[in-house]
């Protein structure tokens, strides 16, 4: 299954997941060589506090061309939630 971002680029679910994990890894000190998966918890495992999660908005916008609103970001619990949030905002083929 493929979906289209706001600039018309096509993405697969796996492609979105890999891109999101790269973004999350870049924002998580010490996680460069540690496994990050959908089930990885943003707050408990990565240690992001309530506001730190807002930092993903910009790289998601520039890399995946999807605008996430802050209310959705504040409710995220896992990397999988973030993948799902991005995917759900892409247009179905």
């Amino acid at each position, binding site marked *: 299954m493929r979906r289209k971002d706001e600039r018309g680029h096509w993405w697969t679910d796996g492609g979105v997941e890999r891109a999101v994990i790269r973004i999350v890894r870049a924002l998580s000190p010490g996680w460069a060589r540690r496994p990050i998966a959908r089930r990885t918890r943003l*707050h408990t495992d990565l240690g992001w506090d309530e506001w730190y999660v*807002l930092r993903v908005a910009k790289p998601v916008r520039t890399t995946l061309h999807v605008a996430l609103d802050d209310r959705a970001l*504040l409710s995220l*619990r896992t990397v999988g939630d973030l993948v*799902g*949030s991005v995917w759900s905002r892409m247009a179905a083929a």
Partner: protein
Amino acid sequence: MRARALALALLLGAPAAAQGQDTTRAAPAADSAHRASAPAAADTARRWALLIGHSYSSARALLQPATLVLEQEHGAPLYSVVDAGALLRSSLAPRAWLELGLRARAGSARPPGLRAYGAMARLFADLDPVLVAGGYEYLADGHFAATQGAATVELTPLGGAPGLGTWVSPALHLRWRPWLGVSWGGGVRPYARAAAELASGRVEAGLEATGWLVGGNALGFVQGDVSVQLVGGLFLTASGEAGRAPPRFEPGGRIGLGLGFRLATAF
């Protein structure tokens, strides 16, 4: 001498985060941890989030369990100490949201001058790389004799320094966050606040310090807690505070131990 025969703390809350604990963080997507593969999971976010903790003064304060401590003094009636806060959050725009809060530092064991009741409304704007909050808070002492309304503007960087907003490293679960602000109400009061959290397994500790510049004098207030998660949102918590807090800025301090419960929910 007061003998503490009974200490019972009721912890409600925490939005977010203890963050060290799953039970504290934002609720809407909480159930999605086990269905992370569902693409639209995050879109189920509810419109309102209710967060209950020690106070609404900061994310850390909301992680601190709200506490109710009962103390008995040689056959006299029980004395109580209450520290609690509740926060209601809703989205306003893609990069902004609204928070409404109530808080109380009360209880019969506290002199009225050291009690405080507050209500506030504030707007957050995400201006990456900083987060800005503007709001208005009403504070009253125990007799509602000293009241204070103040508009506030404060900001914090989202990240960028070691441990700022995220663990220092996977092995050291220590993080901190600074806030700088100004309040207007009965004069202009610049203030700074810093909160630090340390988590290890079921144990978490937090320290929050706030300093105000009031009439040329520097005043400070420090509060901290050490909590052990017993089960779910139930904690055993030791907490303490010292210094001068608004609205009266009278000196005071206390240490308490109790059980607590923390909760975050959405609707």
